[in-house]
């Protein structure tokens, strides 16, 4: 059992864990929080566009959604990180600005990618929640003298939002894990840091086990928090 004797968890914990819980954790947490907030806002905008009666807008959004759902998140991040700056430079030179160079930080690219990708999925959740709210709610608001827009934003959407929260929670946990994709665009998040450490020390089993545990330690309490919020919001629900 040579392999077992060679395991050196204490060394890996002492050396790797501080790295993970330092800057890497910051990157993961900030990316998730900012990415998720933007995803919800973006998802709302898409959902509102989809439930509006404007046919052209509906179609544009559907095409966009298919586009996002039909390509992997990893590819989207790579595209945003490596390709978008080139497009912007190309565009700049077309309109006559020469020598214009753009670069985008890996974290920003990650946040944009996550926000767009998750926003697209979340928009469908929100849309179906909006549709599932009984039309009587809107009619009651209209009958009281609210405008269409007020009925939507004051009565229908708050209820749709509540119904969406459980699903939001799932997406939030998923997003924490998907920040690992940013390793591919050089962000110094958990996976990237672990990979680098393994390359130096060859403590492969130890390092990746620690990495997996760190994700668990973040995600399991997060699920509990989400369930708690869900219960709070359920108050007064039919």
């Amino acid at each position, binding site marked *: 059992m040579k392999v077992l004797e060679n395991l050196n968890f204490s060394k890996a914990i002492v050396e790797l864990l501080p790295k993970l819980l330092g800057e890497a954790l910051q990157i993961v947490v900030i990316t998730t929080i900012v990415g998720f907030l933007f995803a919800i806002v973006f998802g709302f905008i898409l959902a509102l566009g989809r439930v509006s009666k404007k046919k052209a807008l509906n179609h544009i959004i559907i095409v966009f959604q298919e586009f996002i759902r039909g390509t992997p998140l990893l590819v989207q991040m790579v595209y945003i990180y490596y390709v978008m700056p080139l497009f912007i430079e190309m565009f700049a030179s077309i309109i006559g600005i020469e020598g214009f160079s753009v670069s985008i930080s890996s974290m920003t690219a990650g946040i944009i990618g996550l926000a767009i990708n998750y926003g697209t999925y979340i928009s469908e959740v929100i849309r179906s929640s909006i549709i599932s709210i*009984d039309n*009587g*709610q809107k*009619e*009651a*608001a*209209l*009958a*009281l*003298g*609210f*405008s269409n827009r*007020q009925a939507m934003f*004051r*009565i229908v959407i*708050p*209820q749709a939002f*509540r119904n969406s929260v459980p699903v939001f929670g799932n997406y939030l946990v998923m997003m924490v894990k998907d920040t690992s994709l940013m390793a591919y665009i050089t962000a110094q998040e958990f996976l990237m840091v672990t990979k680098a450490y393994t390359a130096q020390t060859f403590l492969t089993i130890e390092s990746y086990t620690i990495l997996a545990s760190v994700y668990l330690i973040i995600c399991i309490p997060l699920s509990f928090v989400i369930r708690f919020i869900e219960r709070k919001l359920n*108050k*007064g*629900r*039919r």
Partner: protein
Amino acid sequence: MPLLEVKGLQKKFGDLEVLKNINISIEEGEVLVLIGPSGSGKSTFLRCLNLLEVPTSGEVIYNGENILKHKFNVMNYRQKVGMCFQNFNLFPFMTVIDNVTYAPIHILKKNKEEAQEKGMQLLKKVGLADKAKVYPETLSGGQRQRVAIARALAMEPKIMLFDEPTSALDPELVGDVLNVMRELADEGMTMAVVTHEMGFAKDVADRVIFMESGYVVEDSSPIEMFTNPKNERTKEFLSRVLDK
């Protein structure tokens, strides 16, 4: 001048003509009860009165103004027309008192204390002052409908529309709702009520209208309607519902 005057009202859903040339006027303080078989257009007619359905043609005159004319301020008009629905449609994420005060605070821009005070008065009136702080989910159907009535009254409407307010209720809960409506009628509220409660129609209505297939078949006083209906169809319908 009648409070509300409906002239030549027609409503089509696609090719289906649900209301055909309806002419009805409602005087201030009058209680109008609409009866008739389901699918006769009663509810659609009521919903046309506050433009939840937009009539295909015809006129609805309120205060000398046709509410169907271009640029008519519909929101303003709806504030003066209270409505109660078959399924109550209370806002489930608000407490009972918030349901009642929400529109006065946000539309009439009343301050919170004033709206609360008025809201509590109305809840007392419908016998639910003790339920002010609970959510609608904990209430029975009859209680929910009474809250819905209080919510509509909080806007101080000139007329109240009731769209089968007791149809979704267990039989033993119907009485409480009808009593509240009776009280309202006694206070002189103008009301248009679609209902299958013939007892209520008999006792409370000033006028009863029998509708069928989108037409007003008979329009008379309750005594006339229930003791001496003129139209064959009215007789047939009444004999069927009154035998039950």
